[in-house]
Every structure is written in C-alpha cells, then in structure tokens.
C-alpha cells in the first residue's frame, strides 16, 4: 500500500519538478520522463505482489472535507488495474522522452510532463481511492489532466474542437457519477461516502440497485467509450500527442471498466438485465467500433475506434460474467470476468504499442493519413515489426496475447451455448466475437499493409525516418509483453484468480477450479504456439538454405503485362476497405464525392480534366444525435434573448409582475 502511495507521490512530485523547471525543455523532459518511468515501476512491483497474494490493504487518514476521508484501499481488483496503468505509464514515459524532444523549445514541456505524470498518478488514485469524494476528485483530476494533454497542441482548430467535445463528454459523465455516489451514500446512510459503508449496504439497496447500475453504465461507460457515449474518443485520441493517446486509450478507458466492476461489488447480487445490457452494449460497441475503424483514413482515428471495439469485447466478457453470477453458473462467471479482465491488460499492451507505432509514423513521416503513406517498412524497420506484432495481437490471433483473452471469453460463450437458458447469450457472443475478429483482421491488414508495405504513395512516406532509441525500446518492451503473455498465458490466468473472485463475488478456490481446465487448455495452446514459432524459424532457415545457391533475381512487381506500374496505382486503404464499407453501407453511411465525367447538360466529356475522388465516414452519433441536440439547445437559448432587450421599463415590469404573481399566489 505505502509503496503504491509513494509511487503516486513520486509521480506528482516529478510532475511539479518538471513544471518548475518549466521552459527549460531538455531538463523538464528528462525529469518528467524519469519520474514517470521510475515512479510507475516502483508502484508496479507492489501491485503485482498484491495481485498474486490477493490480500487487501487499506489506509485511512483524516481529511477535513465534507463527506470526505482519505481512505485508500488496494485489493486484487485494484491491483489488476494498477498493473496496466503502471506498465503503460512507465513505457509511455520512456517513449514520451524521445517523442517530446521534437517539441523542445517551441512548447512548454514542463506543463506536458506535469499533466502526464498527474494523469498517471490520478489514474492510480482512482484505482485505490475508497471514498466517494476522494474517488470523484481523482476521477476529475484525471479527466482534467488528460484534457490538458489532449489540447497540448491547441493551436490547431481540430484540436480545440476535440478538446471541447472531450471536456463536455467527461464532465457530463462525471455528473452521473456524482449522483451515483450520492445515491450510494444515501442508501448507506450515516452521511459517509466511504466504500466500506457501501459494501455493508447490500440489503438496503432494493430498487436503488437498478438506478445505480444504470448511472454507472452511463457515467463510467462514457469514459470507457461504450457506444453511444464513445464520440469523444475518435476526436480526442488523434488530437493528443501519441504517448498520451497510448495512455488514454490503453488504460484511462479502463478506469471506466474498473468503476463498473467496483460498483458491482457494492450492489450485491446482480440482476438479469444488467448482464444482457452489458452484453448488448459490448456487441454494439464491438461491431460498430471495428466497422467505423475500417472506414477511417486517419491512422490514430482508426486506432481510437478499435479502442471502442476492444472495450466492447471487454463488456461482452463482463456481461457474460454477470449472467453467470445471476444464473449461478460459476463457470460462465469465471470465464467471462476472467476473459474481460485479462483483455483489459492485453488491450493496454497492444493498443499502447499500436498508438506508439502510429506516433512514430507521424513523427517520422509527418502525417497520419494512411493513404499518403506506404513502404515505411524499409525506412522504419523497428516500428514496422512492433506494429505488426501489435496488429496480430489486436486481431486476437495466436500465438499472441490477444488470443488468450478472447479464447477465455469464447470458452464462456461455448459453455453458455450448452445450456438452453444461456444458449442465446452464448450464440450471440460467439457470432459477435467471430465477426469482430474477422473484421479486425480486415482492418489491420489494411492499416499495416498500406502504411508499411508497398511503395510510398507520397513524399511523406518517401522521406520518413526511424524513431529514436528510447521510442524503439519502449515499443519493443510492449511487443515483448504481447508475446510473453501469449506464451505464458496459463500462469497469467492463474495470477488473476483473486481479481476474478473479487469481481464475481465467487470464492477463490472455486475460481481456480473453474480456471484450471481453461489454463490447461491454454498450456497446450502455449506449447503448440511455441512449437509453431520454432517450426517457423526452422522453415525460414531451410528456405534460406535452399535458396542460397540459386538465382533469385529482382524485378518489378508483376502487373499482368502492364509494364510501367507506379506507386499511385497501388491499392489504397479506401479501396481495400471499400467492399466491407459497401457491405455495411446502412450503418456507416460513408459519403463519397465521385468526379463526374459529364458536363452540366449530362453529355459525356471525352477528355475529363484532373478528377478527384474522396470518401469520408463521419460518426453517426456525433453527426446525427449530439450535434443536432446541442444546436437545438443553443437555438432554444437564443430564442430568449429578447428578455434582456435593454429597456428599463420592461425590467421594472418584470419586478412588478413577479411581485403581483407572488402576492396573488400567497393571498389566494
């Protein structure tokens, strides 16, 4: 406990130091980076240890704030979320040290590191806070820090817009949380917002439970990026500097998941529709997320939508888990929660890795527009390899970590199919996961293939350069993590037992019992995967051997007889994705501007001049739900401007009327 607190303190402190150094970019960069790295590592040690031992520690200090007490508690669940937080913050500290160098001089790096370390610390605080006020404060500080990081390059208009959307979204979400905690406090009585008090009040919940759960899904879901509360993600992630997008998408979203799980522990036995709700949200988020991702042209925006998809997968797991608890099918519960929680860690790893890759691409090539890139594999080999690993992992393909968590959830689904009661849920889950997996593969073959392979499609791609050392090391670390969890999955799964027990309220032994077959299966997976890698290696060697002596000439790509292919003839990302986007036209509503080869009168033009084709897919919810809503509110407000028309006569009339109305109301 104390070590984690110390780590948090260290993070804050280094942030302040960096800020105080302020304009002196280099020093601030060094201070902040080291602070983030060391602080997170220190915290990581104890988090892992506590997760393994599954014990609970808490510290309470008096705090003169209404309803507030400085009560921090760390149990397996908190530890499980602390681990990705600390890992990713450490790595992103390392990465950021290299990434931010380019801003040195023109921007205030002190501020950057102040907010970055603040973000890291506040996320950790969110995971350990055990008092409503403390939690809300940490939550809001986290939101504000991330907001300032998102708007770090606030000179660009797009960034400003993103910042506003993000701020509005997170604030509204917090409003729901406010009500949530106050309701819990109301139920618990005795005017305290300590989590311990909530834990005691299962019985008194009654009808409040449903309301509270709904509030949690909305409030925390808006942070986690559940559809339809996801709109801020695709705006904020591209706007933020890449290490920040990595942290935000990798772990900050997960604080929302953590919140939901934590609230579940307060509500006692869950209700059936909660499970179905989460399942539905997960399905919708997963499929919509991946579909939107396929249609994107901006690499980071694409990744942002994939975060929506992965959060959806996590929600699928949790929903299944809740259903398992409701139906007293512990095997469903264990596999669901286990898969979901493991996916929390895995997604943190590979999504962080991918965002870093995108960052290096932007850093090296100067653009995020997929269709302008190409052939980066020759200029940025390291980024390419790590990005490939991330891509394979996020598609849930063996032998990497993405497969492990999806495997657990799948197993839950198959178990569910076996019983008439849960068959529908299981079937939906399997179909959904399979579809998501296939589409994700489509999306990442596109992203990786178009960005890194083939020929450069524009000068951007042509004169790119590899990322700096610290950035490469950071990416390699996460890539190693992806492979490691993939190969050592059984032990990882065993490690998670306590957290699963916490979140499902299932005895630990039972959890281990139900995880055992899964982990034995995973052991086989690991073995086969190991052999797989080995055979691949061997085959590569053989191949090299047999080719060594032979003539392996080098020609232009075979273009079916067309003898002068150019880079612009390559398949673009848009064309690659076109079949899928066309297939889901109804959902995506991709709008494209085709050039017309006919003059205004409709007669064909035989020598058309330079034509341009472009297509873009806007977020349905943002475009057709939220924007109109806000506009309506604004128009409504403007309707009432006449009240303040500037004529003192009217003003006095208001007073007189108010008085009369009140008098009549009072004397009636």
């Amino acid at each position, binding site marked *: 406990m104390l070590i984690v607190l110390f780590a948090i303190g260290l993070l804050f402190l280094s942030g302040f130091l960096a800020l105080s150094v302020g304009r002196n970019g280099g020093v601030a960069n060094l201070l902040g980076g080291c602070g983030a790295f060391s602080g997170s590592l220190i915290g990581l040690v104890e988090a892992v240890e506590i997760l393994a031992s599954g014990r609970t520690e808490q510290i309470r200090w008096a*705090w*003169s*704030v*209404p*309803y507030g007490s400085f009560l921090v508690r760390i149990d397996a669940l908190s530890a499980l979320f602390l681990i990705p937080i600390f890992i990713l913050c450490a790595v992103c500290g390392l990465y950021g040290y290299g990434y931010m160098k380019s801003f040195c001089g023109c921007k205030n790096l002190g501020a950057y590191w102040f907010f970055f370390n603040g973000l890291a610390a506040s996320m950790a605080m969110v995971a350990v806070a055990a008092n409503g*006020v403390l939690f*809300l*404060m940490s939550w*809001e*500080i986290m939101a*504000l820090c991330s907001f300032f990081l998102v*708007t770090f390059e*606030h*000179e660009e*208009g797009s*960034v*400003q817009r993103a*910042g*506003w959307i993000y*701020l*509005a979204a997170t*604030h*509204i979400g*917090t*409003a729901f949380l*406010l*009500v949530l905690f*106050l*309701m819990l*406090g*109301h139920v618990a009585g005795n005017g305290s917002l300590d989590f311990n008090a909530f834990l005691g009040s299962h019985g008194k919940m009654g009808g409040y439970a449903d309301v509270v759960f709904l509030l949690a899904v909305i409030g925390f879901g808006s942070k986690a990026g559940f559809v339809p509360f996801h709109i801020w993600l695709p705006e904020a992630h591209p706007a933020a500097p890449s290490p920040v997008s990595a942290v935000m998408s990798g772990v900050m979203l997960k604080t929302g998941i953590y919140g939901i799980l934590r609230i579940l522990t307060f509500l006692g036995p869950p209700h059936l529709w909660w499970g179905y709700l989460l399942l539905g949200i997960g399905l919708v988020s997963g499929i919509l997320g991946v579909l939107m991702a396929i249609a994107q042209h901006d690499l980071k925006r694409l990744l942002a939508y994939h975060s929506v998809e992965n959060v959806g997968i996590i929600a699928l797991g949790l929903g299944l888990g809740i259903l398992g608890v409701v139906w007293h099918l512990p095997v469903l519960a264990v596999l669901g929660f286990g898969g979901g929680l493991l996916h929390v860690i895995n997604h943190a790893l590979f999504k962080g890795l991918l965002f870093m890759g995108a960052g290096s691409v932007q850093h090296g090539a100067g653009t995020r527009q997929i269709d302008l890139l190409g052939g980066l594999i020759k200029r940025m080999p390291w980024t390419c390899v790590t990005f490939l690993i991330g891509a394979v992992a996020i598609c849930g393909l063996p032998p990497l970590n993405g497969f492990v968590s999806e495997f657990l959830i799948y197993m839950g689904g198959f178990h569910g199919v076996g019983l008439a009661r849960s068959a529908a849920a299981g079937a939906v889950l399997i179909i959904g996961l399979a579809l998501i997996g296939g589409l994700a593969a489509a999306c990442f073959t596109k992203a990786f293939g178009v960005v890194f392979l083939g020929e450069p499609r524009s000068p951007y791609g042509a004169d790119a350069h590899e990322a700096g050392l610290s950035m490469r090391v950071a990416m390699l670390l996460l890539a190693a993590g992806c492979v490691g969890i993939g190969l050592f999955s059984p032990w990882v799964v065993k490690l998670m037992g306590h957290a699963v027990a916490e979140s499902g309220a299932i005895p630990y032994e039972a959890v281990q019992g139900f995880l055992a077959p899964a982990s034995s299966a995973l052991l086989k997976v690991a073995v086969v995967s190991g052999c797989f890698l080995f055979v691949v290696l061997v085959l590569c060697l053989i191949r090299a051997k047999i080719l060594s002596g032979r003539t392996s000439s080098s020609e232009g790509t075979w273009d079916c007889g067309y003898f002068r292919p150019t880079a612009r003839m390559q398949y673009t990302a848009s064309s690659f994705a076109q079949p899928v986007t066309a297939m889901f036209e109804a959902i995506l509503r991709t709008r494209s501007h085709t050039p017309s080869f006919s003059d205004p009168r409709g007669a064909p033009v035989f020598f058309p001049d330079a034509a341009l084709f472009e297509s873009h897919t806007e977020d349905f919810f943002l475009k057709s739900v939220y924007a109109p809503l*806000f506009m309506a*509110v*604004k128009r*409504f*407000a*403007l309707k*009432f*401007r006449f*009240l*303040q028309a500037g004529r*003192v006569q*009217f*003003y*006095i009339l*208001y*007073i007189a*009327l*108010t*008085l009369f109305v*009140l*008098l009549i109301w*009072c*004397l009636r």
Partner: protein
Amino acid sequence: MILLLVFLPLVAGLAAWFIRSNRLRRLLLIAVALIHLGLTGLAWIDRPGPVFSGWLLLDDLGLLFLSIVSVLFLAAASYAVGYFQREDWGKRQDFEDGFLFTNAREATFTCCLLFFLATMSLVCLSQDFGLLWVAVEATTLASAPLIYFHRHRRSLEATWKYLMICSVGIGLALLGNFFLAVASTIGPNESIPMIVGSLIANAPLLHPLWLKVAFLFLVVGYGTKLGLAPMHTWLPDAHSEAPSMVSSLLSGALLNCAFLAVLRGLQVCTAAGQGQFAQEVLLGFGLVSMTIAAVFIVGQTDFKRMLAYSSIEHMGILALAVGLGGAAYFGALFHAVNHSLTKAMLFLVAGNILTAYKTKSAQEVRGAVKFLPISGVLWFAGFLAITGSPPFGPFLSELIILKSALDQGRIAIAVAFLLLLSVIFIGMAAIVLRMCQGTPVLESTGESLQVETSQARRAESALAVIPPLALGLGVLVLGIYLPPALSGLIEHAAKVIGG
C-alpha cells in the same frame, strides 16, 4: 470595535476626497483595507458585544459575510492601486464605439470605494431590520458612482438602470419592512422591536399572513439587489460596464450582503413557523435564476457579461440551497464563500484580459494562455472552479447541496440542478476554451505583436496578478482542505439560519 468597522472606512473616505497626492490616497486605501481585515480577524478571535441596544451585533452569520467582504475588499483595493497606475487619465477613445471619454476623479472614486466598504460592513453588522434596509440602500448609493467611473454612455446607461431598478426594489423592501412592522404589532401602539433577536424570541406572536406578505416583499426587494431572476436585469449591464475591481466587489461582496438581508428575513419566518413557505419561494427563485443564467450564458459573446450571468446562476444556487434547507444551509454558506472568492478572482482576471486585448468580445480574444501566461491560466482555472470541478471549493459546496437534495428525496430538483449546471458548463467551456486556446492574434486591431506584448506586460503587472492569484489559491485550498475554524463558523452560521 464594531463602530470602528463602519466608521473607519467612512472617515477615510471623507479624507480621501480631500487628499491631493495620489500616492498618499492609495496608501490610505490599502491601509484601511488592511486594518479592516485586521479588525475582522480580531472579531474571529474574540467576538465584540452588541452596540446601540442590539441594533449592531456581530453574530456568526454576520461575521462570515463580513470576512468575505473584508478579504475581497483588500484584493480589490490592491488591484485598484495597480489599476490607477496603469490607467491613463486623460481624454481617450472608447474601444467599442470610438467616442472620447474621461474617467471620474480618482479621489471621488476612492472615496466612494471606501464608503462602499463602510456600507457593506454595516449590512453585515446591523440586526435591526430598518437599519439593515438603510445599509443596503446606502450600498446602492455608494456603488452607483463606482459603476459610472468611465464617464461614457454605456456606463451611464448601466448606472441609470442600476439605480432605477435597485431603487424600485429597495422601495419594495421598505414596504416589506412596514409589513413586518404591522405583523409585529401585538396590540394598539405596542409592538415587538424590529430587531432580529427579539423578533425570533417572540416569533409565535407574529401575525402569520402579514409575515408571509412581508417576506414576499423582502425577497422581491432584496432579491433585486441579490440578482435573482427575473429581478436580475441590472446585473449584467452594471457588471460589464463597471471597472473590474468594482465588478468583483459587486458580485463578490454586494450580492452576498443582499443575500444576508434575505437570510435575516428567512430567520424570522423560520422562527415563526413559516419557514416552509419562505423556502418554497426561495427554491422557485433559485431554479428560475439558474435557468435564466443558463439561457444567457449559452452563446454569450461578452465575457464580462458571461461572468455576470454566472453570478446570477450562483445566486440562484444559493437561493436553491437555502430553499432546500437542512444540510444545504451549510452548503449554501460554504458556496457563498467559494463563489465570492472565485468570482472576484475571475473579474480581476477579466480586467487584465480587457486591458491586454482592448475588447470585451469573447470572439476576439484568442490564445490568452500564450499571450498572458498568468492571467490566461488563472482564467481557465477560475472557469473550472466556478463551474464546480474538483479540486476547487465550489465542487464541494455543490456536492453538499446536491446530496441534501437527494437525501430529501427531491430527485426532480437534483436532476434540474445538475442539468442546468451541465448546460452552463458546456456553454462557458465553449467560450473560455476559445479564449484561452489558439494563437494570440487580435482580430480587432491588426497591431503588430510588439505593441501587444507591451500591453501584456502592462496587464500583468504585479499588482494586477497577485490579488487574483491569491484568491485563486484560496479557492483551491478550500477545495482540498476545509479549515476547521471556517467550517466551525459556517456550521454555527447555518444553525443561526436553521434556528
């Protein structure tokens, strides 16, 4: 000592009128502010007894508001000194309409400023309803010339509306006092003295119906001053036209004084068993005010007016909280403290921005954070604070209010409260973000950045930055750690209201 609190500024004001040398006068201003603060601090340590047979008495409620007034006045005074230094006193062109205008004499201004302090202190001190009324009236008198500091049309118009509307309101308040007198007549030619204490003491004897009507008149009358919608109409004009430190005093201190007056009425009603009725009225006013504020903040173009409307919003919150009662009394008083500090700071910062950019239009201000490093950051921090985000004080007070609303099972009110707060937050965010972010180019005047930076330096002189900075730190501290002394005082004050 109580008398000193009132008469010291009064005498100093008279003196300031005659003092020739600017330096001496400014010294006097600061000195009085400091002494006043010191006296208030003494009052915290040992409470002075009643004066004039209990007409003047410093109870917990009064002390709380007196402290606010005193602190804000120090900030405003020190800011004013810097303001005098950087203000050019000759004829100069108005940046909006372009006509020429001059300022009022500095002596006059200082004098009125000190009178203003005296009258506000009197409001906090007076226990007798008549005297309270006189004091509130006097604040209007003293502040009118302050608003008309820049001698030009807009400020004149603002002053005129301020006077007209507030006088009507104050007249109604006077009538309210008479009704109270009638309610307190318990026989031919004999009646309870109109002193809060004694009224509460024999509350049961009060005539309920007349008391009700009296309270209505008091609320409408003082509510005009307090800026409760729909009597708020003078507020945006006055706040946007007055010089910044005056605006900060108006919305930070003056509104609180009016609020105190309403609370006095509430005390009597509660004691007489009419609390239910009074609270319903206040609740209604609170919701209406918040709604009006939200409506006018969304898409607001003038950032000083935006602040003014946000003051209306917060007065609404206070009324709402008092209307809820119970634990919300504490929340209301705590929120009054938070709001005063935050809003004063925001107005002072707005003054700096105004000086630097020479425009009140939020559209034309860009990149404040880059251009005015300190003021810009303070501006954004203040925005966060005033919209009730942690870790600033208002978050806690609004949390308390919301909690008591939920605990009383008034879900609808809680929902409306949160909804309006969210709307206001989003509206203000759209404005403030636009002002803070981006690159500092002035659409209004295409002057070279060289001139601008000189302006920036002018706007960020020490005296212009330190007062708001101090206030901002105060708000931050209140958000993280509520000093037991303060919370104790607030609790006692809440008991005073709650009876």
